[in-house]
C-alpha cells in the first residue's frame, strides 16, 4: 500500500481521520460507538420491517436464534477477514479453504480415526488445514512478494480443486453422532454455533483493540513503511494475519460440517464476497489501517436478517439479490453519515 492510495480511500469513505499514524491510533479506540451507530440504525430498520411484515413470526425467540445460527459460520470467517483487511491485505480464498477443511475433516480415514479415539480429531484436522492454507497464503504474500489478490486467487482455485479431488466430488456424510450432537446442542438455551461465534467475536475484539498485536495490525495496514521503521517485523506480522484468518476458516469448517452433517467441496461458495462485504459495510477500510470487529458483526447480522425477513415474507430470491445491493449502499451511507459526526466530535 502506498500512502497516496491510503488518503484517497479515506476521502472516498467519507470520514476524515487525522493523517498521522499516532493520532489515527488514538481515534480508533474512541470512536467505535459513533462509527457503528449507522449500522445499528440499519439493523433496527430491518428488524422494524421484519416485525411490521411478519410480526410474531419474526420476533420469535426461535427465529432470532435461527438468524444468529445462520450468521455464525460466515461471521467467524468475517472476523478473521477483518484482521487481514485492516492489515492492508485481502483474502479471496476463504470459501475454498472452508471447503477443503470440511472435506479433509470428513474423509473416511479421518472419521475412522475419530471414531477410534475422539471426535476432536475432526476439529483438529479442520483447524490444521485452515492454518496450513493461511500459512501458505501469508508466506507467498509476505516473503514471496506476491500481491495478496493474486496469491489468494491461486489458493481459491487450488484449494477447491484439491477438495474436489479428495472428496471425488461426492458429499461426505458425518457418521459420528457425538460430534454432531455436541455442536448441535445448546448451552443455557444458546446454540453451540452461536456461542462459538460470540467467543470468536469477543476474542477478536480484544485482540484488535487491546493488544500489541492489534496495534501492530493497524500500523502495518496504515503505513507498512512507517511500521517497519518503528521496529515492527512487518513480514512476520503479515504471515500471522493470514494464519489467523486460516484458523477462522478451520473453525467455520467445523461449524458447517456440524450444521449440515456433511463435508463437501461445494461448501463455502462465495464466502469471500460475503465476508468482504460484511467487513466493508462494518466500516473497515478496504485499503487497511482502520478496522472494527463490532462493525463486522453488525455487517454479518444485517445480511442474515435481510434474507430471513425476505423468506418470512415469501419473496423471491431475485428480489433478495436486489435488496442486498440496496442495503449495502444504504448501510454504508448511514455509516458514513454517523462516522462523520463522530469524527467531528473527537
Amino acid at each position: 500500500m502506498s500512502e497516496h492510495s491510503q488518503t484517497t480511500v479515506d476521502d472516498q469513505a467519507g470520514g476524515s481521520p487525522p493523517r498521522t499514524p499516532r493520532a489515527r491510533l488514538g481515534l480508533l479506540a474512541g470512536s467505535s460507538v459513533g462509527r457503528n451507530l449507522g449500522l445499528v440504525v440499519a439493523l433496527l430498520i430491518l428488524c422494524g420491517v421484519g416485525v411490521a411484515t411478519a410480526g410474531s413470526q419474526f420476533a420469535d425467540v426461535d427465529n432470532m436464534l435461527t438468524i444468529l445460527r445462520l450468521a455464525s459460520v460466515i461471521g467467524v470467517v468475517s472476523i478473521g477477514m477483518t484482521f487481514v483487511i485492516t492489515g492492508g491485505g485481502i483474502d479471496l480464498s476463504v470459501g475454498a479453504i472452508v471447503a477443503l477443511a470440511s472435506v479433509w475433516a470428513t474423509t473416511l480415514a479421518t472419521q475412522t480415526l475419530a471414531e477410534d479415539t475422539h471426535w476432536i480429531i475432526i476439529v483438529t484436522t479442520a483447524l490444521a488445514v485452515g492454518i496450513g492454507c493461511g500459512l501458505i497464503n501469508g508466506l507467498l504474500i509476505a516473503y514471496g512478494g506476491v500481491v495478496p489478490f493474486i496469491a489468494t486467487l491461486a489458493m481459491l482455485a487450488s484449494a477447491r480443486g484439491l477438495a474436489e479431488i479428495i472428496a471425488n466430488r461426492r458429499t461426505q456424510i458425518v457418521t459420528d453422532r457425538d460430534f454432531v450432537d455436541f455442536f448441535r446442542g445448546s448451552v443455557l438455551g444458546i446454540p453451540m454455533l452461536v456461542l462459538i461465534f460470540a467467543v470468536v467475536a469477543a476474542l477478536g475484539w480484544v485482540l484488535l483493540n487491546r493488544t500489541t498485536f492489534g496495534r501492530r495490525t493497524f500500523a502495518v495496514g496504515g503505513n507498512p513503511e512507517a511500521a517497519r521503521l518503528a521496529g515492527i517485523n512487518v513480514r512476520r506480522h503479515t504471515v500471522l494475519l493470514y494464519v489467523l484468518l486460516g484458523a477462522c476458516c478451520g473453525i467455520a469448517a467445523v461449524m458447517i460440517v456440524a450444521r449440515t452433517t456433511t463435508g463437501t467441496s461445494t461448501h463455502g461458495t462465495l464466502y469471500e464476497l460475503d465476508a468482504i462485504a460484511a467487513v466493508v459495510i462494518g466500516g473497515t477500510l478496504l485499503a487497511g489501517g482502520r478496522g472494527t470487529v463490532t462493525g463486522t458483526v453488525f455487517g454479518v447480522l444485517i445480511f442474515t436478517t435481510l434474507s430471513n425477513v425476505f423468506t418470512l415474507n415469501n419473496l423471491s430470491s431475485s428480489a433478495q439479490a436486489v435488496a442486498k445491493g440496496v442495503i449495502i449502499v444504504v448501510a454504508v451511507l448511514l455509516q458514513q453519515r454517523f462516522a462523520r459526526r463522530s469524527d467531528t466530535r473527537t
Partner: protein
Amino acid sequence: MTTHKTPRRRIAASAAAGLSALLLVSACTGNTSDSDGDDGGNTAVSNNDETGDTVVIGFSGPAADHGWLGAINSTAQAEADEYDDIDLQMAEGTNDPSQQIAQVETFINDEVDAIVLLPTDGAALTQVATRAMDAGIPVVNVDREFSSPFAARTTILGDNYGMGVSAGTYACELVEENDLQDPVIAEIAGIDSLPLTQDRSQGFADALEACDQTVDNRVAAEFTVESGEEQAANLLQAAPQIDIIWNHDDDQGVGVKAAFENANRDEFSFIGGAGSCNAMDWIENGEMEATVIYPPTQAADGIKLARLIAQDKGMSDLVQVEVPKRVVLNAPVVDADNVDEYRDLCFDS
C-alpha cells in the same frame, strides 16, 4: 490496492498471475469417473443385444461436479462395457462449451460412428452438432436440448416439467388421503434462474391447481448442501406448521434434512427429487415420504440408442423399424411401496 512498483515485485506478481492461471486451469479440469454403475436392467427380449458390427461412439458431457452428473458418466461407461461391439471414446468432462465443441470436432475428425452429447449448454453446441450430422455422424442429444431440429438424430430427455407434475400429483394424493384441511405446502427449489427449475416449479404449481392447492411458502437454494440447509432453516421459521414440503434436488436435500433435524421439525411429509441413494435410505427408514426420479441413466440410454442407430436397428418393442426421433423419460415417484425396484438406479450424492 496498490503495491510498490519495483521491478522484482512486478516480475514476481506476473509470475504469480501465470501460476494462478495454471492452477485455475488444472483445478477446473480434474475429473475422475468411477465405474461403479449398474446394468440398465434389460427387460425387452430381442436379438438387438446380439453382438453386431463394432461401433465407435464418442461421448462428451459436463464435468461431474455433483452426484447426479457423476452417475450420468459412470452409468454410460457401465452400459458401454456391457456390449462387446461398443468402443466408447469418453471425452474429459468439462463445463466449458468451447472445450466441448473442440471435443466434438475431434470426434468428427476421427470419423466415429455415432456421438452421444450431453451439452454444457444446448444452444452453444448446436452448430457443431449440426456439422457432425452433416458429416454423416448421427448425434444423440441427451438431457439439455439443442436449439435446432437438424442438430440431432435422436433426443433423449428427462422431464423437468413432468417431475413437478409427479410431485404435485403425489402431494394432492397426500392431501386427499390424510384429509388435510387447508394444508400448508412448501417448495424448496434449485437455482431459480435455470429453465429446468422454472419447469419443475411450473409443473408442481399446475398439478397442485388440479386439487385446488397452491404453494404457500417457496425458497430457492443452489443445489448445494449448505444452501439447502440455510434456505430450509429460514423456511421452517416462516411457516410454523407445514404439511407437505417438496425439495427439487436430493443433493441439496442432505442439507435440507439437516435443517429439519436442527430445528427438531418433522410434522410434514417430505418429498424429494432426482433419486439419490440417501433419499432411498430415508424412504426405507420412514424419514422421507417419497422422491421423484430424474433418471441419471439418460446418457446410458443414449449410448444404447446410438449403438442401435449405428447398426441400423430399430427399438425392439416398437413396430417402427427405426429408433424414434425423441424420447422423453418418465418421472416416476418412488415411495416406501416401490423403493426396492428403483434401488439399483440410485446415485451417490
